[in-house]
């Protein structure tokens, strides 16, 4: 004995779900149900609908999603296919995740068809204005011919987008009408012959002119905008012309010889040198020279060189390694995570950052790109040597009483040796050029320590080093 289940054209998804639940609760196998209603005829010996059954059935969420799309497919066998899968899910609930199963693959393909049809509807519905000019609420209408039964599941998209106007999407299947904030669905409309709309001419003008005749790719256009939609797209009237004329237009562009510049070129040229902008580099001679530096290859990758910052007569100069990601973007030294840690510890050590000169041994950021991040790389000996030029210039300018070298790179740049930092730290060394250099670790070393005790210990030592620097600062300022 076969059951016959009728489903309505509007509200199909809910109706199917309820019917399927009843059939499942009654234990009716797929081969005993004929699904019909919209487009399948009733079998000769079919029984009328079964009564709705109570009770719950658990099905995977992925099946619900699949069914909610597939019910809108135009294939008359879609309900039967869905129910057959539902029946198999009772034994094997994981089945919807099996992308290799033939029945699942077929349903997934149907789901994809429906999604594509919905997407194309969102894209290709073209409204024409139908309301009276000057009306309080503007009114639009469109005629559209979807491939599947996609009006109902897609209508909400238009509701979300165009809620401040009235609109109707009329189709040969189900039509959506939105008036004064209320959406309703009606069946069976015929092509209403909507009035002309002046904006269409502007749209076609745009379509003609945004096309580049030198890159004709008709196939690419048609695979995304199939011909079946063309009759309801106003811009499609321009397509044959555009395709036909494209090769000649491209040839003409290539063959036309260059013309002489127009007369206004001279007045334009006169205007040009004026603009200077906020992005122009710093004004001072040394920072400007550092900005323009191309002594080593590092400048090719970085955003900008980061010169030192602070009072030109500072008694203490702090030298770090090189700018990091943030410093490179902002163009200022010691503003990234290590710079912030330095600021915190310096403050607690009584060292006022505004009274010292802070700079880096190397002025450009060295990194390797990794996806959306830049991984810091240590500068090489040759890069440090090349950048010495600028560090020396800064030292000659500022003439500090004490230089604090933070980390191996700074120590190498200042003393010629970057090894054994942990043994040398906390001691003042005299450089060949006659500067007193206090060796300490780089704050990024503190950030990298994972062991908490060790970290507290190292931070205390670093603070002691900065305290020494702040003493020197106080002595020489007094």
């Amino acid at each position, binding site marked *: 004995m076969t059951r016959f289940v009728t489903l309505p054209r509007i509200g199909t998804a809910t109706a199917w779900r309820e019917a399927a639940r009843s059939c499942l609760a009654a234990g009716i196998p797929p081969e005993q149900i004929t699904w019909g209603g919209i487009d399948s005829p009733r079998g000769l010996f079919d029984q009328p609908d079964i009564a709705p059954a109570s009770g719950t059935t658990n099905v995977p969420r992925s099946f619900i999603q699949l069914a909610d799309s597939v019910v809108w497919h135009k294939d008359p066998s879609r309900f039967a296919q869905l129910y057959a899968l539902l029946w198999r899910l009772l034994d094997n609930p994981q089945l919807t995740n099996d992308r290799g199963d033939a029945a699942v693959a077929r349903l997934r393909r149907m789901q994809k068809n429906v999604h594509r049809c919905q997407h194309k509807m969102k*894209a290709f*519905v073209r409204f024409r204005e139908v309301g009276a000019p000057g009306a309080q609420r503007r009114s639009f209408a469109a005629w559209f011919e979807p491939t599947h039964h996609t009006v109902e599941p897609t209508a909400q998209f238009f509701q979300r987008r165009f809620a401040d106007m009235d609109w109707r999407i009329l189709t040969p299947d189900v039509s959506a009408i939105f008036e004064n904030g209320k959406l309703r669905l009606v069946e069976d409309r015929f092509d209403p012959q909507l009035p002309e709309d002046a904006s269409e001419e*502007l*749209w076609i003008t745009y379509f003609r002119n945004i096309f580049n005749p030198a890159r004709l790719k*008709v196939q690419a*256009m048609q695979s995304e905008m199939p011909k079946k939609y063309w009759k309801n797209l106003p811009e499609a009237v321009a397509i044959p012309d555009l395709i036909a004329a494209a090769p000649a237009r491209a040839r003409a562009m290539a063959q036309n010889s260059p013309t002489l510049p127009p007369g206004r070129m001279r007045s334009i040229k006169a205007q040009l040198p004026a603009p200077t902008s906020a992005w122009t580099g710093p004004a001072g001679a040394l920072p400007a020279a550092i900005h323009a530096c191309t002594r080593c290859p590092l400048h090719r990758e970085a955003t900008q060189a980061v010169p030192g910052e602070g009072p030109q007569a500072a008694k203490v100069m702090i030298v770090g390694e090189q700018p990091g990601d943030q410093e490179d973007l902002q163009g200022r030294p010691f503003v990234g995570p290590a710079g912030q840690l330095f600021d915190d510890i310096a403050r607690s050590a009584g060292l006022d950052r505004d009274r010292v000169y802070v700079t880096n041994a190397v002025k450009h950021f060295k990194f390797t790109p990794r996806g*959306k991040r830049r991984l810091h790389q240590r500068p090489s000996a040759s890069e440090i040597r090349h950048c010495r030029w600028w560090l020396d210039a800064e030292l000659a300018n500022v003439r500090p009483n004490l230089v604090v070298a933070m980390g191996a790179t700074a120590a190498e740049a200042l003393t010629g040796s970057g090894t054994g930092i942990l043994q040398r730290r906390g001691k003042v060394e005299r450089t060949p050029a006659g500067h007193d250099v206090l060796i300490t670790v780089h704050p990024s070393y503190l950030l990298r320590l994972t062991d908490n005790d060790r970290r507290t210990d190292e931070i205390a030592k670093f603070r002691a080093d900065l305290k020494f620097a702040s003493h020197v600062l106080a002595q020489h300022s007094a």
Partner: protein
Amino acid sequence: MAKLSLQQKLAILSDAAKYDASCASSGSTRRDSRNGNTLGSNEGSGICHAYAPDGRCISLLKILMTNFCIYDCSYCVNRASSNVPRARFSVDEVVRLTIEFYRRNYIEGLFLSSGIIRSPDATMLDMVRIARKLRHEERFRGYIHLKTIPDAAPELIAEAGLLADRLSINVELPTDAAVKQYAPEKNPDQIRKAMADVRLRKDGSAERSHTGKRPPRFAPAGQSTQMIVGADGASDATILHQSTRLYSSYRLKRVYYSAFSPIPDSSAKLPLISPPLQREHRLYQADWLLRFYGFELGEITSVTADGNLDLEIDPKLAWALAHRGLFPVDVNRDSREMLLRIPGFGVKTVNRILSTRRHRSLRYDDIARMGASLKKARAFITAVGWTPGALTDSADLRARFAPQPQQLTLL
């Protein structure tokens, strides 16, 4: 000169805008107008409302505010020395076009660019004014993409980022030397600093303040840029190196590659060729491999001797053919990283394989149903009921994929 009609202006200023490749409307904040007193929505994924016969998506009203320009960039149709007809939209005209097109469901929003008139600041100010009017007076919630003028004042960029979904600044050419040669008024350092500024502002807008309040989102769909391919002599390795640098430094959403295309009234400085569309396509493929498939730049560009991508076969296949020792890969056992390297497998296919193989072993036919292109993949995989045997190492493997050699015609 007679006053131009709106239609004539639209013709001139959309014609002038078509060399910008970007037309994306995706990846912004989700928002809608259900409340009934605003217009428009954005649902995350973009919508292409039409396709031109050049195969390009038309998602946005892509126009120039004006094509008058004081710069003289050789590759550009709007350069000062060109004799193309010029026009200028008023603020109201752009706003009206955008709204009327949007209400008829022609577009997702506006992509506004401009030639530089008077000064960078004055130009940027006019563009910001248009965006401001759309957002505040028309209560427009669709998508807005503003081209940033690199030399404009930071305050203007700050406001532009709050009004627009996406900002973009074109680096134009792959090397600084080429920019200096062909776009003498542009400064590549300043372009990069402006991109750094956009990234910093975007990062800053993601951080909550101490009260837990989130500042207004800055350019939620991120920033993008465009490079012209084939105008200068840069190799693909140089171009891709430049894009990895830009992606990592400024968190760009996209780098667009635009095959240098003949323009009306071209400059004598640049050769007019038919646009290298195949090269552009291969660059996009390589870009995807770098961002989504775990490839390193060196792996892709070291396959050929001159650092240019193989035009006949895609870069993943070219890499696989050069590293056949790593294949065949067992789809039932090997890691995700390795599966992503199989030619003919996309990210979705790999995800489907991984989720299915948890439950059962995969047969050759299963793979076909998962969206893989087996014509390419079959030589590189093993599955239940399939091993490629000598196919993986066969000498004519490349010839199976490369287009047939064309015989030269006598005439």
